[in-house]
């Protein structure tokens, strides 16, 4: 397979001479080279990622697809600094993440990453507004945090549900709260692992639409694992994982206008 040519402003380059060549942005926030991840369960070693290269640039919109068990969640965990690679090189803004202590990784995660999960994981004792504030609750800036949380909830269309508890919200509304929560720390990247997995088709489509809007409005890169076809159209790139290897990377970057939105 031939590497794809640089398409636009030269931010793309070849990923070297790996078997799975990929286009990786040069100004990547996080980038990985020949990343391997193994799990050990019951004395058996499972190789979930078998040497993949990746990179996420600012305001990227990347869809990760592939069959179940192909390593999509594993890849997202590495991107989100929730886990460390068994081998290979993962760098956050040029810094080798394997040198980070747990404390540093936690701090970087807070500064850089937002998470959206398939099962929302909202805290049932907190209202929508408080759930959005939650990542910043220990920051002792309650007034600023509340302002921003309110703004984000309004942005995702829940301005009238601020004081509702999670069990008073529909699945789509819960996921919107979760998306607002993922943005409260002004991250560079939002990682979403099958965010539409528990939603019906229409609701899921609207959630993905929201992601597409947000990554431009909020200047945040979005990496989402999905089975949804809609994403294939919306995403800049579609990364297909099969059995721990990247099989193809489809770049649709050219479909979007570059530069600041009006």
């Amino acid at each position: 397979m031939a590497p794809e040519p640089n398409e636009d402003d030269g931010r793309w380059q070849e990923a070297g001479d790996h078997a799975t060549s990929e286009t990786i942005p040069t100004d990547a926030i996080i980038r990985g080279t020949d990343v391997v991840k193994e799990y050990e369960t019951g004395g058996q070693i499972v190789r979930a990622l078998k040497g993949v290269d990746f990179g996420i640039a600012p305001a990227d919109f990347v869809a990760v697809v592939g069959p179940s068990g192909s390593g999509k969640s594993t890849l997202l965990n590495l991107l989100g600094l929730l886990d460390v690679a068994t081998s290979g090189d993962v760098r956050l803004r040029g810094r080798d993440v394997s040198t980070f202590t747990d404390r540093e990784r936690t701090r970087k995660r807070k500064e850089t990453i937002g998470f959206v999960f398939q099962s929302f994981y909202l805290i049932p004792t907190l209202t929508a507004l408080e759930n959005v504030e939650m990542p910043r609750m220990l920051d002792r800036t309650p007034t600023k945090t509340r302002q921003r949380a309110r703004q984000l909830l309004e942005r995702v269309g829940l301005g009238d549900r601020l004081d509702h508890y999670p069990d008073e919200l529909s699945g789509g509304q819960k996921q919107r709260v979760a998306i607002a929560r993922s943005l409260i720390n002004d991250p560079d990247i939002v990682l979403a692992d099958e965010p539409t997995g528990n939603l019906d088709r229409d609701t899921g489509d609207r959630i993905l639409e929201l992601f597409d809007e947000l990554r431009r409005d909020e200047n945040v890169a979005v990496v989402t694992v999905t089975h949804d076809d809609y994403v294939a159209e919306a995403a800049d790139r579609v990364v297909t994982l099969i059995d721990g290897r990247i099989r193809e990377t489809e770049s649709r970057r050219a479909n979007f206008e570059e530069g600041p939105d009006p």
Partner: protein
Amino acid sequence: MAMSWLRRVTGRFPSVVIARRNISRARTRSLLAAAAIMIGVVAIGAIGAGGAAFKESQLDRIQEQGATNVYVSPGFDKEDRYFDRTDLMRIDETVGGAGIVATESRSMEYRVRSNRQRSLSVTYLDDPRRLHEVAVGEIPANWRRSAVVSSEFAAEYDLEPGDRIVLAPETDEGETAEFRAYRVTAVLAETQAFGVDQVYLPIEATGDRRYGQVRITTESVEEAEAAAAALREEFNGRKDTLIVFELTSLVRLFKSIVNGINVFLAGLGSLSLLVAGVSIANTMLMSVTKRREEIGVLRAVGYSKVDILRILLVEATLLGAIGAAIGIALALLVVLAANAIFLGSPFAFTSGSILYLVGAVAFGIGTSLVAGAYPAWRAANERPVEALRG
């Protein structure tokens, strides 16, 4: 605005807010855990502080009865079973400035009427005023053939100064008693003090100036202890020439017995706190197991291990604090009652009882903190990837 003010305050202590919400989530379970702590706190607080009040009341009684006095009598190794003038001088020298009063006690027959007599205890001494206060009448410098009687005795036999009482030394079976009349010259004031005899006679009346007991009066419990120690050192080096008895040693014995019992009972109370600790640990373990994913999310969005640890410890502590607060309120009621019964006023808290109450609260909260440590540590160290693998 009140709301925003409240928010600013609670915003300062977010872990408390989070903890409070979590506690109210599983209300029944939380209440049961807090109730266990409450029982422990009540047990320790009520037993300890109530016991302290009881001890104080008994101590007061002993003090009143002359804990500043030291009593000395001839020891088993003393050849003569009495003190003579030389002995008294040596004792006087040994105790320095303290006032000494030598007495001799004997049983006598008191003839109430010509056909009725009873046995009573008589104290011979130089001057009764050095031991007791006089209520009516007076004691002449030379009070030979006079008697001084206690107020009780005077009341019982309707005596007043000027009356005569007829006494005889106790005799063995068969011997005839030699009765002599004494004029009552004074009646002593009523007193609670320990060791007040019924009738006092001048030492000359014994005929031999031998004393069976010496009382040493000091100004304070410490002086009494010092005097007793000096006497023991001077007289009881190799042989037990003196029996030295001071109420302070009784006080000390009593204190150590009551303290021992109190500590033992409060220790039983602490056992109930141990059970409470198990309950808190169990509650917290269930809670963190149920919230495994939630804690995983907290970790994912940037809460450090220490943050999680703190939140959960605050939660356990809050559970304990709720239990301890209710417990101390109940314990206070018990102690107020104990104070009222033993010390005459519900608010007569002794430093000992306050110590027990404070200790009970501290112990209750401390138990919760320790009990919450393991669940909190386990939850904080769970890898978020594992928690979130669903």
